[in-house]
């Protein structure tokens, strides 16, 4: 369904000189720096999969999505979506994909939701029966009826997002790209959107690529995750496997009685230190929890101590912060 091979994107960011003479000089020579937004990323997605495409801000997630949807032209490497090359066959590709950018609405700001939908019906040449069927179904699942006649500018964020997702699915796309679909929503609204995504995926076999910072989204929706950091792919596989690989690691948080200059303990890494509070990461295979606590008690005076198994959020944070920790880059299932 989606094939990405050695995909790279380099942006040239021009440096603007300040002031009158600076802007004059800009006319003749412009300094630029090169930003590698995506670096030799490869993966494939099969029909009907839901893939979480994760990474910290600026990792290159959106850039990848934009290359998959034909908005951006790759610097090198290849992309095929549904057999189309998105940047060469943008319009053809667009007929078979749905796109939702959580931060921006696709709907016409001043038009009632219904009118936007009717416009989309024309754009995608959606047959009347299919259009009616879809609107009815989406209304049932997302209660669009409550605000179907309201101009988009008057919708709440949750309503807008529901309308946007429904709009992206009106033409029965094979693939749905969701870029942060739950951003800024409350718990109830999030749950509702997740249920809807699950249902659409199950009933229509829509392939879904989801980028998000909300790890609840990932846990609820994605079996498979792709992690990207610093423009590179660093994990591709089942979420359960990521958890297994990383949950050998544990975290130990200690509140010391005073601030010690050297708080290092053999076999444990300091992950953060804030005054007298220190967090260590350790692997129970290397050193048992009891031994570690023993070693700490021998050297320092402590007030409080606690051990945690990292939750998924912590796991991903560790991956982001320390590339050496995990898997060789590019490892795939």
């Amino acid at each position, binding site marked *: 369904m989606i094939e990405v091979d050695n995909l790279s994107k380099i*942006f*040239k*960011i*021009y440096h603007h000189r300040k002031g009158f003479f600076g802007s004059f000089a800009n006319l003749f020579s412009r300094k630029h720096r090169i930003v590698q937004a995506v670096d030799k990323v490869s993966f494939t997605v099969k029909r009907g999969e839901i893939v979480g495409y994760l990474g910290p*801000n*600026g990792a290159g997630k*959106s*850039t990848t999505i*934009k290359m998959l*949807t*034909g*908005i*951006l*032209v790759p610097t090198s490497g290849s992309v095929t979506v549904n057999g189309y090359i998105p*940047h060469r066959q*943008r*319009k*053809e590709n*667009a*007929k078979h*994909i749905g*796109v939702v*950018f959580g931060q*921006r609405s*696709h709907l*016409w*700001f*001043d*038009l009632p939701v219904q*009118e936007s939908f*009717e*416009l989309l019906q*024309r*754009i*995608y*040449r959606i047959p009347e029966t299919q259009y009616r069927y879809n609107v009815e179904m989406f209304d049932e699942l997302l209660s669009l009826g409550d605000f179907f006649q309201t*101009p988009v500018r008057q919708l709440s964020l949750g309503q807008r997002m529901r309308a946007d997702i429904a709009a992206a699915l009106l033409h029965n796309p094979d693939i749905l790209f969701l870029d942060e679909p739950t951003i800024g929503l409350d718990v109830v609204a999030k749950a509702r959107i997740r249920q809807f995504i699950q249902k659409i995926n199950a009933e229509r076999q829509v392939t879904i690529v989801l980028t998000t910072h909300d790890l609840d989204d990932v846990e609820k929706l994605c079996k498979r995750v792709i992690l990207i950091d610093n423009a590179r792919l660093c994990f591709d596989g089942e979420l359960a496997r990521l958890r297994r690989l990383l949950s050998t690691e544990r975290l130990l948080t200690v509140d010391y009685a005073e601030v010690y200059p050297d708080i290092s303990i053999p076999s444990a890494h300091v992950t953060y230190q804030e005054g007298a509070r220190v967090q260590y990461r350790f692997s129970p295979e290397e050193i048992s929890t009891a031994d570690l606590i023993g070693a700490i008690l021998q050297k320092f005076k402590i007030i409080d101590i606690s051990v945690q198994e990292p939750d998924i959020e912590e796991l991903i944070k560790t991956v982001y912060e320390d590339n050496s920790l995990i898997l060789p880059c590019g490892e795939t299932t």
Partner: protein
Amino acid sequence: MRSLCFAFQVYLAFAKKSFQRRMQYRVANLAGLTTNFFFLLVHIFVYTAFYAARPAPQPLSLDEIITYFVLCQVSFMLMPFWGTRSEVTSAIKDGSVALQLTKPVDFQAYWFADECGRALYYLLMRGLPTFLISLLFFKVTIPQQPTVFMAFTVSMILAVFMSNAITITIFSSGFWTLDTTGISGMSYSIITLFSGMLVPIALWPEWLAHIARWLPFEGLIDIPFSIYLGKITGIAVWIAIGKQMVWNLFFIGLGRLFLTRGFSRLVIQGG
């Protein structure tokens, strides 16, 4: 042929919605009529003073001059340099152009359709009221022959089209410079002068008028109004309209080239 017909329907729908969207703000818009009349009066007072000071016959009579500036106030809002800016022009700047590109539509055609809706809206809600009110207060000449009126209508439509073709070309330079304030400011001045917006080209010194005749911008204001006033007649009307058509094709082509080249080097602002 069928797909062409279909495409036309889509863009027609875009134009309709664009019109409909703006209709929501029609009351606020009517307040803008005062601005139209303010500028109209300024022009009329200045030219009345000029003509009183110099009674020698001029290429345009005072009534014709007044009619010219009434037409200016009727039609300048239809053109994107002088009217309010459409959302599409800011789409490149803020990156929301990306969203349009995820739909199976031609961006330039979408832009045109959006602007057509806008132009129709301003014609009905600003242009015609301005014209009708002006009829009550000033001596506005009205063409006696229906053919003149028809030629004027065609020429005016071409003028609105060209204004958009030029705007698209200017704004697609935003793909390279990211900020179009400089270039659009510069072209605004050139266009305002050479279209005949401030002074009808008939009143210009010979050498400057000669330059204007070789530039595309007279097709925006001076050509359609001169046709209306009967200053261009007979075969010259066809030549003038032909000129407008050629410049239209030129700017549509150039804009298209810029857009295609631009998209391939698109940098989406804000990630």
